[in-house]
């Protein structure tokens, strides 16, 4: 399948899609000879090369290459003379491609990054591995969403079973996962939507609400101001004030646990 507005020769397989805004994670296949003119996307996106190579401008990017392209930044012409496979994450909207050799006026080119991910990654996108016969007997949950794709290897989680090579998961915040094991070891790419903090425990039966409460009480000790924010109901992770996914009323932009943005609050009656 090909993406609307993209040149022919790039096939994709959808891994997950946000049904609210079209943000999506997918594996992609650049067929040998694929050519894409310079162009931009309305959403920021991340590209990771798993095999083969692509050429951006005049530079060749092979396995392990990672490119972060902010919204509106015109990427140079992209081609793949011999073909490549990779992962693409469109973070805030559906995939889009607008042919252009200049940036959109709102583009932030200074945020563009292209690195070899096997050397290092400093963002909330990261590489991780498990060594053969790795095991970890505890249960974890996070304040953030997490997704991962197995480039190679197998792993096991007590709640979800085995994940093979090519396996993928996207998990909302506060869901128990673990114990963990890996017979053959794995190499994987992972992503979170904010800072990852491991809340470890050993109760398999706790639910999302209980985990969120426990995370909040731990945060009360570490960061009392943040705890006040958590009590507005929603999620524990720090809100992104630049791109708040909530709305403003009262003194802080926020949304509620159900993700509803379009809602009103009744006026509180003053006590006389």
């Amino acid at each position, binding site marked *: 399948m090909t993406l609307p507005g993209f040149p022919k020769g790039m096939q994709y397989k959808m891994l997950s*899609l946000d*049904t609210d805004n079209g943000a999506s994670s997918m594996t992609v296949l650049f067929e040998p000879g694929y050519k894409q003119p310079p162009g931009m996307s*309305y959403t920021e996106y991340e590209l990771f090369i798993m095999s083969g190579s692509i050429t951006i401008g005049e530079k060749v990017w092979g396995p392990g290459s990672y490119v972060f392209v902010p919204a509106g930044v015109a990427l140079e012409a992209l081609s793949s003379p011999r073909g490549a496979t990779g992962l693409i994450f469109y973070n805030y*909207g*559906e995939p889009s491609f607008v042919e252009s050799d200049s940036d959109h006026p*709102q*583009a932030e080119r200074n945020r563009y990054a292209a690195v070899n991910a096997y050397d290092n990654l400093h963002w909330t996108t990261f590489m991780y591995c498990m060594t053969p016969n790795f095991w970890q007997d505890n249960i974890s949950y996070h304040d953030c969403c997490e997704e991962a794709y197995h480039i190679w290897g197998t792993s096991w989680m*007590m709640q979800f079973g085995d994940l093979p090579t090519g396996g993928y998961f996207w998990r909302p915040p506060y869901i128990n996962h673990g114990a963990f094991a890996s017979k053959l070891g794995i190499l994987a790419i992972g992503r979170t939507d904010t800072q990852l903090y491991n809340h*470890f425990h050993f109760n398999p039966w706790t639910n999302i609400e209980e985990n969120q409460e426990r995370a909040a009480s731990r945060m009360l000790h570490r960061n009392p101001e943040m705890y006040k924010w958590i009590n507005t109901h929603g999620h524990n992770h720090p809100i992104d004030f630049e791109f708040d996914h909530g709305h403003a009323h009262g003194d802080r932009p926020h949304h509620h646990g159900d993700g509803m943005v379009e809602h009103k609050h009744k006026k509180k009656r003053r006590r006389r």
Partner: protein
Amino acid sequence: MKFIENKRSREAEAWLKKEIVEQKRRYRKIVAEQEALTPKRDKWIADFLQRIQTRGVHTHYDQMRKVRPEEIPVKPKRKFKVVF
């Protein structure tokens, strides 16, 4: 700037509509697969609760401590879910 407001093309609208249907189907499949895993999962959990009493639970990197029998959580009566 992480996203630039724009008007979706008709082609993009149609693509998104189709992919949303696919995503919902994918989700239902995941829920069914995870539901089918229940008997195995129950055993994995029972084994885990046993192991953390004998071999121990990981507390920090390779550090472990044995969990006392009175610390072992009791399964609540509510429905147990792993997919939300």
